[in-house]
């Protein structure tokens, strides 16, 4: 790989593409377009941090938005209520590399069924369940590309969809939680498997293997062993000499000319000065909340209800992934704070089963859940004292002897669940805050409870001395998974983008991130977002090369 100096473009230069967001999708998009010779600028809201700047500081990273979004979000369950700031929370990272920097790196593929569930099950009352316009087979080559281009560790499991190439790296070493989980699940006749993760079990492409420090979930990896876009694809994009990653650049509007074509985007720099970056085409990879928000903020006379929103579907059918979790206490020390969060999972209940009487499926994993502050604040069972000598004793005694079993489930596309612009709340730039309207479909909560019940059985079978619910199966007021808000589809009246990720309404405007997803999968959407971006990058490049943008 020939490395050229990092390029910078003047804003007045019309680049081939401007990409908004540098996360799981934006980083991949930057790599795919720049390596095909296109000039591009990637605009990232947050700063650029080097791995050496990542800290092991729970107070800062988990409680004080060390690298995550500090902007206000208002929240309500239904559109009959007034949304309130603080009633719920979205979590995404705000730096070069986006949430792929701070995610836990659980890395599941969707299964074949996730793309065709509507055909298999029919409609679900209260939801707008649809098939994807592409299949698992269409996406499989790009899942494999993700595996090999960014570095994924794992081994095939009994319920996995077909794969065209093995994992590039062996699974991570099993932790005590994985051993106990496997023991309990096997006793019940279930089929636990190694957890695939976007973390390097061995050195790969000049990057370090995992050092097992334990700071994956919500932290950046200072060893570069987590396969974020910052660690993997962004350096490749920059080495082309065609791609500028412009940090501290907060986009507020996609600009449209009189012909209805995008001409670039207007953004604030670090000093809150506005600039227009011109481009021949615009690709939004800002995440499943920020992408629809940006479209809605880009309304104009021509697009009075928001850009690319002739279907009225921008921001609609917001999906999260649901789930509940339970702790188990064991006789000996597990030391779960060491190494990665998850090493074993269970997909026996992945598929929806009509015999259960409701829609949904999912997975269960065994994991480290709470760093010290979070553990001491709220990790103990409800019947434990909250202060005093006995509290102190239990906090110390249980910390290393416990593990969490976490359920990860489907989230139905409910039309009234949405991202919209809050009519009154503004962020620090004076832009409308994101307003979330979200209430889980009853089936989402039922499958969540089902997996919690199975988790309790597995904890018993594994020999837990005590078990307790950490978070119950209840309507979500928190998420890091932002899905389905600009879905892909063939019908321009019911979807926002086509199978090339081109918006139905604006020929040179493309969207690719969690918003593109038609169904939620069962959790862990980042791998699918990256696979979609590899596929979209290839197709957008081909359109550009053919002069069809």
């Amino acid at each position, binding site marked *: 790989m020939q490395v050229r100096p990092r390029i910078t473009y003047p804003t007045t230069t019309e680049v081939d593409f401007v990409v908004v967001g540098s996360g799981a999708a934006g980083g991949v998009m930057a790599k795919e377009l720049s390596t095909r010779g296109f000039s591009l600028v990637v605009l990232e809201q947050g700063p650029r941090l080097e791995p050496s700047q990542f800290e*092991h*500081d*729970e*107070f*800062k990273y*988990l*409680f*004080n938005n*060390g690298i995550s979004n*500090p902007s206000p979000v208002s929240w309500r369950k239904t559109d009959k209520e007034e949304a309130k700031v603080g009633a719920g929370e979205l*979590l995404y990272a705000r730096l070069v590399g986006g949430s792929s920097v701070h995610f*836990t790196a*659980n890395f599941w593929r969707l299964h074949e069924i996730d793309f065709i569930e509507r055909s298999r099950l029919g409609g679900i009352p209260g939801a707008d369940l649809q098939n994807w316009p592409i299949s698992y087979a269409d996406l499989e080559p790009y899942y494999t590309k993700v595996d090999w281009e960014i570095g994924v560790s794992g081994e095939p499991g009994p319920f996995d969809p077909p794969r065209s190439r093995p994992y590039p790296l062996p699974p991570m*070493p*099993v*932790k*005590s939680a*994985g*051993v106990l989980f496997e023991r309990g699940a096997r006793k019940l006749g279930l089929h636990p498997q190694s957890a695939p993760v976007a973390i390097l079990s061995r050195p790969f492409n000049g990057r370090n293997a995992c050092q*097992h*420090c*334990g700071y994956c979930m*919500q932290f950046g990896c200072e060893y570069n062993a987590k396969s974020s876009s910052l660690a993997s694809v962004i350096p490749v994009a920059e080495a082309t000499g065609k791609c500028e990653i412009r940090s501290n650049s907060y986009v507020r509007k996609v600009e449209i000319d009189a012909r209805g074509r995008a001409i670039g985007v207007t953004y604030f720099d670090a000093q809150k000065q506005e600039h227009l970056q011109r481009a021949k085409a615009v690709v939004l990879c800002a995440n499943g909340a920020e992408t629809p928000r940006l479209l809605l903020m880009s309304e104009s006379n021509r697009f009075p209800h928001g850009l690319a929103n002739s279907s009225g579907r921008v921001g609609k059918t917001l999906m*999260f*992934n649901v*789930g*509940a*979790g339970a702790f188990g206490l*064991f006789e*000996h*020390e*597990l*030391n779960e704070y*060491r*190494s990665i*969060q998850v090493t074993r999972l269970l997909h026996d209940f992945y598929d929806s089963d009509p015999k259960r009487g409701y829609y949904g499926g999912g997975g269960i994993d065994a994991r480290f859940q709470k760093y010290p*502050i*979070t*553990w*001491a*604040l*709220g990790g103990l069972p409800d019947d434990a004292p*909250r*202060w*005093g*000598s006995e*509290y*102190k004793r239990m*906090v*110390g005694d249980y*910390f*290393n002897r416990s593990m969490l079993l976490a*359920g*990860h489930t489907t989230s139905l596309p409910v039309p009234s669940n949405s991202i919209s612009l809050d009519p009154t709340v503004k962020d620090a730039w004076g832009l409308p805050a994101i307003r979330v309207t979200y209430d889980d479909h009853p089936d989402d909560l039922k499958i*969540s409870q089902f997996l919690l019940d199975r988790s309790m059985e597995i904890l018993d079978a594994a020999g837990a001395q005590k078990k307790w619910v*950490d978070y119950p199966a209840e309507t979500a007021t*928190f*998420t*890091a*998974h932002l899905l389905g808000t600009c879905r892909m589809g063939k019908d321009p009246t019911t979807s926002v983008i086509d199978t090339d990720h081109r918006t139905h309404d604006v020929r040179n405007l493309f969207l690719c991130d969690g918003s593109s997803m038609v169904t939620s999968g069962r959790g862990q959407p980042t791998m699918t977002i990256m696979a979609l971006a590899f596929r979209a990058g290839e197709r957008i490049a081909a359109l550009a090369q053919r002069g069809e943008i």
Partner: protein
Amino acid sequence: MQDHVTRRAFLAAAGAAGAAWLAADPELVQAALAHARQTVGSPPPYRFAALTAAEAAGLEAIAMRILPSDETPGAKEAGVIHFMDKALSTYAAARKGPVLAGLDDLDKRATSKWPGTTSFTALTPARQDELLKVIEQSDFFREIRDATVIGMFANPSYGGNQNQVGWKLLNFQAHGVYQPPFGYYDAEARKGG
């Protein structure tokens, strides 16, 4: 479910009062860190930035009942009061008034229940516990409880958790790099147990 339920779980558990000890602005946290670095290294007699000596003694007395010094070091040895003082002089400055009002109320309860007592601080630990049980559902107590816990288990750079006594209580060996086996059960599995 999400991989990130921790903060949400905390906010749900703590309510608004506890959450006030969490700054929304990272720059303010940096200011607190700078404060902490300055004062941890300064020679005695220690000067608090936000609290008088009596106020600090009162808050520390409560913290010592929340995380007592028994077989293992507690809030006192961790220097939780220094964490609180930093917070109350920087990002949680808005909480100083309500916190001191709560402390004043506690002192009044102490003197009215046991006439002749000058303050909560002066009570025996058993009497302190008796009084705290009465107010344990109050916003004031919950706020001090959460602040004590955060101070005990946050990085020592924030002023508490001195000598990592909080982490030692958990047997959390912070910031290491490890090789398997990590715990008892994976070690046992490796041996074929």
